[in-house]
């Protein structure tokens, strides 16, 4: 496994997902109750139909209950969500055992109906201390009690991931549950643009350290990851969540709000595979004008003619990079070395392009967001682990 498609709202989602799986550039889907209803409605297939079609295409189906999103104060787009009936008479919340148990039983039942692995719900954490962290831990323990083979989820804002030894201690308690699968998510409070934000090196170092620890015994999936999640594959993750819209590549609270300004369609972007970056189409055109072979090499293939071609092109570039890292198996030193070399080459390519193109088209800020900050997170993690 390497790339799972996060759920999305667009009408063509299922068709595009199964086509990508059939083409070998995605390996399955992460279903969300927010985006796929349990019962079919106009323009949206029922969850069972989606699961059947994805499996028929040869893909894996994981139903992520997205409880951490449901319990964000801002989440109110529950039209599809409520069709899943994931909460019992005790009410919504993971603050008492009665609610936890009712929710867990319903989540596991839905996952079983869909043929998904059991994946326990969790809460969004700001800190490894305090009542919310305790509730999340208790929920995870109950989930294991109900389903010994249950996968587990760990979701936190940057403030959670940057807590150093306190994060490690919390992860130690979770690791004792021996979950066969871990689904990790970095929650953004706001997603301002279509670029990764790994400026908080300490937080992403914490994420990578956690991936390293959990992947010693378990499969680790990093959700809403896209290119920003690639360092996690160097640390031991084997699967990233991605897709074609902004809300699939980054955990964006707006994806769960009815006040959302609408679907973010990255039609005006083109993925530059050798840069590990998604740049505006006009920047892609400018790179193309520099001539071949450099342009095609940097892009990783021919210029995608339209949105459909870009969806495939993006997944292919991401999949290829993830495969190049995970092919090293459990040898983290080699995984890190592979990605380090990728970033160092990408930095050189960026520098050459920045010199060749107008500053308004491409500049150091692009390089910083796509290469320098992920590289720093990788370096910080790897140096601490003696892998650099």
């Amino acid at each position, binding site marked *: 496994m390497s790339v799972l498609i996060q759920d999305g709202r667009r009408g063509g989602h299922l068709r595009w997902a199964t086509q990508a799986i059939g083409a070998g550039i995605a390996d399955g889907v992460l279903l969300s109750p927010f985006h796929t209803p349990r019962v079919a409605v106009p323009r949206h297939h029922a969850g069972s139909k989606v699961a059947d079609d994805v499996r028929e295409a040869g893909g894996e189906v994981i139903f992520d209950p997205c409880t951490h999103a449901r319990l964000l104060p801002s989440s109110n787009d529950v039209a599809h969500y409520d069709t899943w009936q994931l909460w019992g008479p005790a009410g919504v919340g993971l603050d008492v055992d009665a609610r936890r148990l009712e929710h867990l039983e319903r989540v596991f039942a839905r996952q079983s109906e869909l043929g998904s692995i059991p994946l326990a719900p969790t809460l969004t954490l700001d800190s490894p*201390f305090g009542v919310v962290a*305790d509730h999340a*831990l*208790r929920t995870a323990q109950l989930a294991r009690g109900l389903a010994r083979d249950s996968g587990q989820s760990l979701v936190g804002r940057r403030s959670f991931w940057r807590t*150093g*030894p306190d994060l*490690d*201690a919390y*992860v*130690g*308690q*979770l*690791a*004792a549950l*021996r979950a066969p699968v871990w689904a990790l998510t970095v929650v953004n409070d706001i997603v301002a643009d279509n670029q990764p934000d790994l400026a908080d090196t300490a937080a992403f170092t914490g994420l990578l*350290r956690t991936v390293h*620890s*959990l992947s*010693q015994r378990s499969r680790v999936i990093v959700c809403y990851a896209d290119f920003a999640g690639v360092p996690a594959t160097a640390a031991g993750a084997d699967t990233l969540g991605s897709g074609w819209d902004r809300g699939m590549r980054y955990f964006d609270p707006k994806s769960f709000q009815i006040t959302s300004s609408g679907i973010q369609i990255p039609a005006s972007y083109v993925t530059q595979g050798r840069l590990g970056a998604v740049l505006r189409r006009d920047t892609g055109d400018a790179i193309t004008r520099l001539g071949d072979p450099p342009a095609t090499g940097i892009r990783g293939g021919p210029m995608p003619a339209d949105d459909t071609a870009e969806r495939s092109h993006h997944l292919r570039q991401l999949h290829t990079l993830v495969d190049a890292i995970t092919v090293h198996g459990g040898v983290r030193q080699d995984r890190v070395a592979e990605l380090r070399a990728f970033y160092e080459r990408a930095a050189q390519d960026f520098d050459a392009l920045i010199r060749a193109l107008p500053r308004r088209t491409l500049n150091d800020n692009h390089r910083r967001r796509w290469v320098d900050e992920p590289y720093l997170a990788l370096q910080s993690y790897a140096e601490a682990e003696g892998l650099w």
Partner: protein
Amino acid sequence: MDHTELLEEVRAALGTSALEPLRVGGQKMVYTSELEGVPCVVKIVPIPDTAHSDEVLERARREVELLSTVESPYVVRVLSEAVEVGDRPEVVCWVEELLDGSDLGDLMDTFPWQPDDVWALIKDVAEGLNACHELDVVHRDLSPGNVRRRSSGRFALMDPGFARHLSKTALTGVYQPGTPGYCSPEHVPGGHPMPASDIFGLGILAFQALTGRLPVPYNSNEGAYWDALRRADAPAVKTGRDDVPDDLADVVDRCLQRQAARRYLDAAELLEELQGFVDEGGTT
């Protein structure tokens, strides 16, 4: 009640023969005796006439309850219930089997040990811990005074006086007991004990037996000690002794991982790894 009268009441309550002092002092008085003609140990815990009396009594009861539940040749057996003596009561006492040999604490001048002896230490203590971990019990105070080397050369686990059932552990942080120099990162105030904490403790004993020194030494500065446990990685055992076999060094180093998630999670996982070495002909 004077001391002589107290001992006589203890002897009568437990049904043993006369009590001979073995170790008196600290939180526990230990005597040798006989129960129905079989040599045994009588342990007596004074109950202070303070606000902590209930806590001391509960801890003693827990130790006896745990020992009576655990069935393992690698854990000392309890031969009676916990009996309270005196009106307040003044002491709680019970009978345990008498183990021959010496506590690890009395053998520290024989360190460093040969690798085969350390393999035996790790395996036997892991067996004893496994008997506890299977019951969701964490020992929490693995130290040289709580491990005994029998005359047969095998080891047994003793004194789980601070042991705790995981299901009864509060989620919020509380102070954890432990012996300075032999604590795990989870012993740091606010931490949560778990089976992997005992694994760290076993790693300390193995490291010390191999090198004669502690991996995370305690220098009478509690704050510095807690900080080192939380933030610093223990040195690789080969930095203290370069002739330690690779497989033994790997086991000890993994036991001593600062992050619990990177250790053996419990004694069963450690024993599984050791069995793999045995299958390959690597350990005793």
